[in-house]
């Protein structure tokens, strides 16, 4: 019995870790190519969840009721929408600010986050209230000995892990990945070697925002509820996870995501009233870890930046 509960906590912890990691990888990618922190990234994640929900509703209205088709189209729609949003952000907000004081870029991305958050609150029908997200995956359980695992959780974990592996392959094995790494290492040299800098930045934003879309979709499917302000928490934690693992390092970001999810899950279990105060605890952990190691836990991998 107790092992069953342990597995439940493990699954929920892993799910959280994956969502954090997907968001943190975005932060790290943007920082790598452009040396900026994209503060709106948490809200981009939230928009992804809402696009998925909106496309589910319109598919249902159009009479498509096969869950697999719905899921597939929702995923495509939210990734495409966010990739476009990422490209537009890079092209019209972030790239023109290149050379401006870092403070201005920070404020700019933060205000973009506010714009996204407020737009969803105001313009999505009844966007101020939490929205129910459909559970489209099969919810039956598999029994392995004493342990029971839900099929939907396994599928989501598998999908998330596959996404992370794909991103790492994209960065390490493809020409685009090579270009991204080149720009991250030395922008000037990369330009002289014939890399189209603007295009690489825009594609990086597309990839990072697409990851946020997947994270938003998974989070909606897992918690079955989304709301307009959930991006704030994700943004803060994703950013902290990226820093903890050393900004500019994908594996570091993933490790950071796992660390924060682990701490949060342990906190929810171990602390009295843990579940009521889980967000308070998460923010406190962020402040403490950032104070303790502002350059990241894996200091050899981190670039200075503080």
């Amino acid at each position, binding site marked *: 019995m107790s092992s069953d509960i342990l597995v439940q906590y493990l699954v929920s912890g892993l799910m959280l870790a994956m969502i954090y990691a997907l968001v943190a990888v975005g932060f790290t990618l943007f920082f790598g190519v452009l040396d900026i*922190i994209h*503060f709106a990234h948490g809200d981009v994640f939230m928009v992804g969840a809402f696009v998925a929900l909106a496309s589910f509703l319109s598919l249902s209205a159009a009479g498509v009721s096969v869950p697999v088709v719905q899921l597939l189209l929702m995923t495509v729609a939210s990734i495409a929408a966010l990739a476009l949003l990422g490209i537009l952000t890079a092209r019209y*907000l972030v790239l*023109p*600010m290149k050379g*401006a*004081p*870092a*403070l*201005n870029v*920070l*404020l*700019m991305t*933060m*205000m*973009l986050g*506010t*714009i996204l958050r*407020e*737009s969803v609150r*105001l313009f999505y029908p009844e966007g101020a209230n939490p929205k129910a997200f459909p559970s489209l995956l099969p919810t039956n359980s598999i029994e392995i000995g004493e342990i029971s695992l839900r099929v939907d959780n396994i599928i989501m974990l598998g999908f998330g892990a596959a996404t992370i592996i794909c991103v790492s392959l994209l960065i390490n094995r493809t020409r685009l990945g090579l270009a991204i790494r080149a720009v991250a290492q030395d922008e000037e040299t990369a330009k002289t070697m014939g890399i189209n800098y603007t295009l690489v930045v825009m594609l990086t934003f597309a990839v990072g925002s697409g990851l946020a879309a997947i994270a938003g979709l998974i989070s909606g499917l897992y918690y079955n509820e989304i709301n307009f302000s959930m991006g*704030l*928490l994700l943004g*803060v934690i994703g*950013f*902290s996870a990226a*820093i903890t693992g050393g900004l500019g390092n994908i594996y570091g970001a993933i490790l950071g995501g796992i660390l924060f999810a682990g701490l949060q899950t342990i906190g929810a279990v171990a602390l009295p009233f843990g579940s*009521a*105060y889980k*967000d*308070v605890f998460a*923010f*406190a952990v*962020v*402040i403490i870890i*950032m*104070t303790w190691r*502002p350059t990241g836990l894996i200091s050899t991998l981190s670039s200075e930046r*503080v």
Partner: protein
Amino acid sequence: MSRFFHRKLSVLPSIIALVVAMAYLALILHVETQSMIIALLTGGAISFFLASRFDLVSMVRQSYSAHERVMDILTALAVVAVSAVYHENSFVLFMMATVLVYVIACLGLNLQFGYAGMLNFAGAAMLGVGGYTAALLGNGQIQTIFLLPLGGLAATIIGSILLPPMLRTHGHYSAVITIAFNLLFTTFLEVYSGFGGTQGLPVVSMSLFNFNFNEDWQLGSFQIAFYANYFLLGFVLTIIVMTVVRRIERSWIGLSFDAVRLDEISSPCFGVDIALWKAIAFMSGNFIIGLAGAFYALMLGYIAPTNFSFSDSLILVTIIILGGLGSIWGIVLTAAIVIILPEKLQAIQEYRFLLYAVVVTLVLLFRPGGLLPRVPRIYLPGWRP
């Protein structure tokens, strides 16, 4: 020739500007129909644009600083005169007092952000600490006037929790730490039932020497709405805080703040202790914000976590950026715009956070200096470098 260049500027431009600005303010506060308000706002925006285009704004500012003492007194009198026009109108007086709360809070934030360059997105949390202190300690035992400095003190103490992280980090990192703190603060207040939870807490009304601030009073044949009391107290507080902040800016303290902001590497070489000055800026700024929070709570009579959300922190930062980083008169101007505009234009009330975010984005892209950019410090009235 040098006599020509150092000729003392006439006081006239600043007096004209003051009269025009006050007449405009009174008009905006008076007008009720939405179409008239929109017309007035458009007219105001166009006139300000033209005035800054033809260097009238900088002329006024030079003239003002040449006759600073006289003009300060005249401005104070003019603001009181505008409030006297509305002595019966509770809503207008409440609005003007709210503007003052934001002016005081932004002056505090300005010490941290505008001068010492420390990003603080937990301004609303510090307001909240001051407000909740006033709510919790105001039980009739303590003279309510002492709740104001106590609120400031509480904000300084709670804020000093953030001091170690703020000293170890800067830029994005301190931004995310203060955001996390503000979110922590509001979620904690919502969850913890001891401070009223999401419902919030009632706050005692202000009273001074047995004079209850929440009562209307008579002056001759005039009926004075009770918000006038809060407005006048807030006005006195604003004058005190503004004087202090301006003295700080002009002194070697302000000079050290600027050094810390502008170059963290070369200022230690000149003997400026970065950690010390950052700590001073952060704590004194939090004190002022907490003071504003306590005053705000006493005026509102009821506070809840939603009064101090992260969005409100963004409003504080918005005021500072739009006014021009480090510019005191910029803060006064934009605080008035940011607070009064959504109250008068009902159509944008709901959309105000969105609107401000868009406006700040545009200002950052096209006019990074803000509406009234900070001018080089002038050590004495009329003094010229």
